[in-house]
């Protein structure tokens, strides 16, 4: 049986791309990550595979494109169904999807409201960011991972976004560990997993990128 060709159109700093790579690693799948130059010029393949949004990640399974990271992670989980990322029962899956949706709607935008601010970071933006993290911390509770004892879907959706937290902390003048110690411990646990460690860049590198991006946007 010929091996399926798995390709991700990628950008190293995109937390959305990281989600897909972690899911593939968790499933023990080999894939090719094609780096896209999002500033210099997007490839023809990217523009034709994702004509509506023209964004990364795009996942190509034997040439068939899939877009939107949460949808791609679901697809990977359903197609390679051993070591499932979602719980077996319908209610558990609904809960996992709810928190993935919450993370998608809230976290990256809240980060952006801080790292994109010109001058002094608004107090409201910092307050909102911490409130969102506290809600996630409450959902985590005393569990090892978001869905009990197994690293899964919600963890994969959230952990890449935390690689941007250092930049948010530096620019916003706040500390996630002080405000949300349980969440901070969960972050450390996840980063110890090989599937995550080999994908998530060092926070300092992301911070350098954010500073460069701020200059590009004329914020600094």
């Amino acid at each position, binding site marked *: 049986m010929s091996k399926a060709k798995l390709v991700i159109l990628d950008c190293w700093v995109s937390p959305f791309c990281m989600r897909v790579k972690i899911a593939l690693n968790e499933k023990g799948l080999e894939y090719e990550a094609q780096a896209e130059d999002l500033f210099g010029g997007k490839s023809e393949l990217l523009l034709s595979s994702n004509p*509506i949004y023209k964004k990364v990640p795009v996942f190509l*399974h034997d040439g*068939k494109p*899939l*877009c*939107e990271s949460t*949808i*791609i992670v*679901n*697809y990977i989980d*359903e*197609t390679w169904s051993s070591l499932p990322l979602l719980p077996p029962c*319908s*209610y558990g*899956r*609904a809960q996992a*999807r*709810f928190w993935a*949706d*919450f993370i998608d709607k809230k976290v990256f935008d809240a980060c952006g409201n801080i790292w994109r601010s010109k001058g002094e970071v608004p107090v409201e933006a910092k307050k909102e960011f911490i409130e969102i993290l506290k*809600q996630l911390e409450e959902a985590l509770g005393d569990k090892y991972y978001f869905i009990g004892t197994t690293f899964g879907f919600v963890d994969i959706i959230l952990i890449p976004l935390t690689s941007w937290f250092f930049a948010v902390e530096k620019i916003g003048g706040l500390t996630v560990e002080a405000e949300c110690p349980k969440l901070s411990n969960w972050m450390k646990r996840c980063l110890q997993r090989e599937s995550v460690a080999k994908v998530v860049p060092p926070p300092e590198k992301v911070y350098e990128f954010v500073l460069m991006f701020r200059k590009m946007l004329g914020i600094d």
Partner: protein
Amino acid sequence: MAGELVLLDFWPSPFGMRSRIALAEKGIPYEYREEDLRNKSDLLLQMNPVHKKIPVLIHNGKPVCESVIQVQYIDEVWHDKAPLIPSDPYQRAVARFWVDFIDKKIYELGSKIWKTKGEEQANAKKEFIECLKLLEGELGDKTYFGGESLGYVDVALVPFYSWFYAYEKCGDFSIEAECPKMIAWVKRCMQKESVAKSLPDQEKVYEFILQLKKVFGIE
């Protein structure tokens, strides 16, 4: 399996309509409870403490929030009747993509059409029509987005039809003139009892929008 089912809802909500259609398609009995969004019930606040929004589907006392999650849940639990979500993982991912596109675009652009005027409204109308045309492209020559039967994308999109008249009156344009295939698809959907009885009358929705405009002080 059925147990006790309650849907906390608000009659003009296109999101609530999605769950109503899914439950009706599968012939599942449930209790519909109308919420007054200016005075939310304790039950709503307790069942959806994070967003405090409708719809909330309560199954044997346990809440499921967010309409697209509810439709997926309903489809999984009552999987033996009228399946909505494709069984093939790739087709399923494509359907999820379009439902996500509808969620990102249609409600927000529609809201801009009735809430704004001038250039902002004109831009919203233009983009709204562009989105409908993209959806027309995805529909192609199929009877429904789901093929021969109603599917996930149909259930996610058709509720917005109940707001089309309001958008047209506020925006002074005709959706049918711009997107005839979309309206033809809507009419096919409306022939299904599950859809027809889940959508409110368009004139009623328009009256509701006019009330909202008064409350928000929008001309």
